[in-house]
């Protein structure tokens, strides 16, 4: 599990550099509240603290929450989200290994449904707030002004397409303030760093290639099909793969072993399903990004998929 955290570091470093160090504060807040909540629950269940805290699973959940929540979200939002993830989504289902849903994504879904405004306030890139100013915003000491935040590249594209009569993707993307080479400015770098971290995890054998590959193929091919069908209405697959939580989702979220599928074929189905759903939600749905709901929906199907994809065992292969 600590390896998973390690693999996130390049992405985090870029994130902090491009969007400001507030993310580090959020990471700290999330980690502390996750460990505290975990300790509390372990105590209540009379389980050995050191042993379970040391496994790092709470930390991974905390980091994923910090990285998917807006970095300038008020401090209590991330604390509440993390506590919800650990206490309700994980421990009330029986603790480590028993939760049917990815705890971090449950927290995200709950918060975006409960606090939609706060959850969509992403800092506009190039908004150069000092560390102190960022701190003040996070801890509610400075007024939360709308100018602080801009919509994410994904969101801007969606609303832009919805509003304009004659706007098309190319026009919108030409707005260099928010878009970079092929996706969101800055974001393409961060997602690229996540991709590298994820590949490292595959190479180390911590995760298998099935879920990320299927996720990328699922999301990418659907995006490609629609893009080919109407490039004015739909952004390129590259844009989608490097926007929002796509790479984080492919390598770090959908690969959660506990709530995902375990058979190789099941993993392929799970990853592809999550990728396709993520695209559908993010393009046609009401939320800025679709990763969380896509993963949760696939979590729901995981047991059935596992059941239906049992591999043939030794000596039983040629029997149908």
């Amino acid at each position, binding site marked *: 599990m600590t390896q998973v955290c390690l693999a996130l570091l390049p992405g985090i470093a870029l994130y902090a550099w491009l969007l400001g160090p507030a993310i580090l504060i959020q990471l700290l807040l999330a980690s502390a509240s996750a460990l505290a909540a975990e300790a509390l629950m372990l105590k209540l269940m009379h389980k050995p603290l050191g*042993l379970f805290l040391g496994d790092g699973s709470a930390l991974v959940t905390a980091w994923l929450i910090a990285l998917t929540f807006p970095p300038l979200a008020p401090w209590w939002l991330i604390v509440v989200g993390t506590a919800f993830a650990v206490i309700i989504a994980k421990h009330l289902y029986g603790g*480590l290994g028993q939760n049917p849903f990815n705890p971090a994504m449950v927290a995200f879904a709950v918060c975006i449904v409960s606090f939609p405004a706060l959850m969509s306030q992403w800092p506009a890139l190039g908004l150069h707030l000092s560390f102190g100013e960022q701190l003040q915003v996070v801890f509610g000491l400075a007024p939360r002004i709308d100018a602080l935040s801009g919509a994410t590249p994904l969101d801007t594209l969606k609303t832009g397409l919805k509003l304009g009569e004659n706007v098309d993707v190319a026009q919108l993307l030409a707005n260099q303030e928010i878009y970079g080479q092929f996706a969101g400015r800055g974001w393409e770098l961060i997602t690229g760093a996540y991709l590298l971290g994820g590949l490292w995890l595959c190479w180390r054998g911590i995760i298998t290639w099935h879920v990320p590959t299927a996720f990328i193929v699922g999301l990418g091919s659907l995006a490609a099909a629609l893009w080919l069908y109407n490039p004015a209405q739909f952004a390129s697959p590259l844009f989608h793969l490097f926007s929002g939580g796509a790479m984080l989702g492919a390598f770090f979220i959908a690969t959660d*072993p506990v709530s995902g599928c*375990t058979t190789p074929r099941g993993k392929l189905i799970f990853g592809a399903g999550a990728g396709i759903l993520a695209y559908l939600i993010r393009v046609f749905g009401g939320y800025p990004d679709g990763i969380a709901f896509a993963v949760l929906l696939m979590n729901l199907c995981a047991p059935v998929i596992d059941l239906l994809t049992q*591999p*043939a065992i*030794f*000596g*039983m292969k040629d029997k149908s």
Partner: protein
Amino acid sequence: MLFNLFKFNGGVKPPTNKAQSLTLPIAQAPLPSRLVVPLHQSIGGTPKPVVQAGERVLKGQLIGEADGWISSAVHAPTSGMVVEVGMHMQPHPSGLDALCVVIEPDGHDEWIAREPLDYRTLPPEAVREHLQRAGVVGLGGAVFPTHGKLTASKTVPMQELVINGAECEPFITCDDLLMRERAEDVVRGIGIFRDLLQPQKVLIGIEDNKPEAIAAMQAAVAAVGEDFAVIAVPTRYPAGGAKQLIRVLTSKEVPASKRSTDLGVQCFNVATAYTAWRAIAHGEPVISRLVTVTGNVDTPRNYEVLIGTPMDELLALAGPQADTDGIVMGGPMMGFLVPDTTVPVVKATNCLIAHSPKLFPPKAPEMPCIRCGSCAQACPHELQPFEMYWHARSKNFGKTQEFHIFDCIECGCCSFVCPSRIPLVQYFRFAKSEIWAREREKKAADTAKDRFEFKQFREEREKAEKAEKLAKAAAAQAAKKAAEAAAAAAAEAGGADTGTSAPASTVDSEIDPKKAAIAAAMARAKAQREAAQPKNTEALTPEQQKEVAEIEARRQAGQPATAASEPPASGA
């Protein structure tokens, strides 16, 4: 020779730890102070003891006679006095006792008359019987009686005979040294198997970390003039599992539901071939075997050990270090800590590892399964260990069978890789034994049920027969009466005497007491039924009773009177 090898899925690469015990040649272990020879040393029926306490036995003399076709004889490992035939603890994780013959050696080591056989002149049946009488069993650890595996399937032609010299478990080197030092006997033993099974090819698989053994076997095959293929297989646990070795050498996969001969392949261990040759060409039954003594000892080594030697005496030869606190029998993957260090070496004992906390540090505590799937990736039988674990834990044994628990060969790869350190194999053993126990119980219950049902059936039949008899008798009576009445009428009509009516009245009076008795019995039964009616209105307080009475009264008033009356008696 170029040979096409196949891969088996899964498997692990634990540190092999074999070099320690390979530096010295095989040594003959000295006679122990006493020998405790268990009678049950093979799969199948328990041999019957044929000696008694106080009897003198010779080396190689039969002491336990095979009981049934799947069973194998047991012999005295040396000459001496039988001091006891009794229960002693076994080298088994359960620590259960079993019947043993205890022999005090007299030091002469005096053989019985040994009779070498020219097996080529004998019918196959006689060779198999001889092997059974000589106590030849699979020495790879499964101890299946060898003669039972030496018949080819009638429908499937025998294609490959696979000889297992892989020895993939860490620490164990007895097969390695056997092949190095006694390769020719091994090859001749394989020749016997070949002659009995008539396969198209003989393949000897040896892990490629034993180059000396491979060279020795190749030389021996050439010297004996056979055309057996000696094949180096990749070193990966459990390459020495029979099914994995068969897979690697022939690409055939033998599932739990099939016998390997059904796929035209059979597999024997090299040590088994060796003992088969000794039994036939030298008339020596299996009274000793090679045992690797290693682990926390000063001089790890392989010994030729008499069956029945107490393990602690054998271990003492290798100089166990001070912190030794137990003995593992078998390798670290599939072996187990023996319940007591004095238990005897048996035919299944291939290795003793002196256990110390340093050598086998206690495992970190077990954590919950996170469904990471590592175990499934490592499982050579491509099972889903975490699913079987989950269902075994929740005692949902039917589900474990749906996940093919009986295909699990208990190799331990899954436990080895589990990041949560779950001792998966232990859960599987538990589930299997539990399923067997339930089957047994069910069988017992089924026979009891059958017995009961048969008894009921018999009783019913008897009742029916009785009723039939009665009905017949009654019909006969009625007919008789009618006939008599007719006769009487005729007589009356004929103006004959009136004495003929007397028998009829006697018959009536004969039947009447019976009827009365039946009526009385029915009345008694009815009374009893009424007495046995449950009454939940006893022991009530006066207020409650009053209430009940009121309710009763209301009910009586509100309903037609018949409803309150006695229910009609059933037609019994």
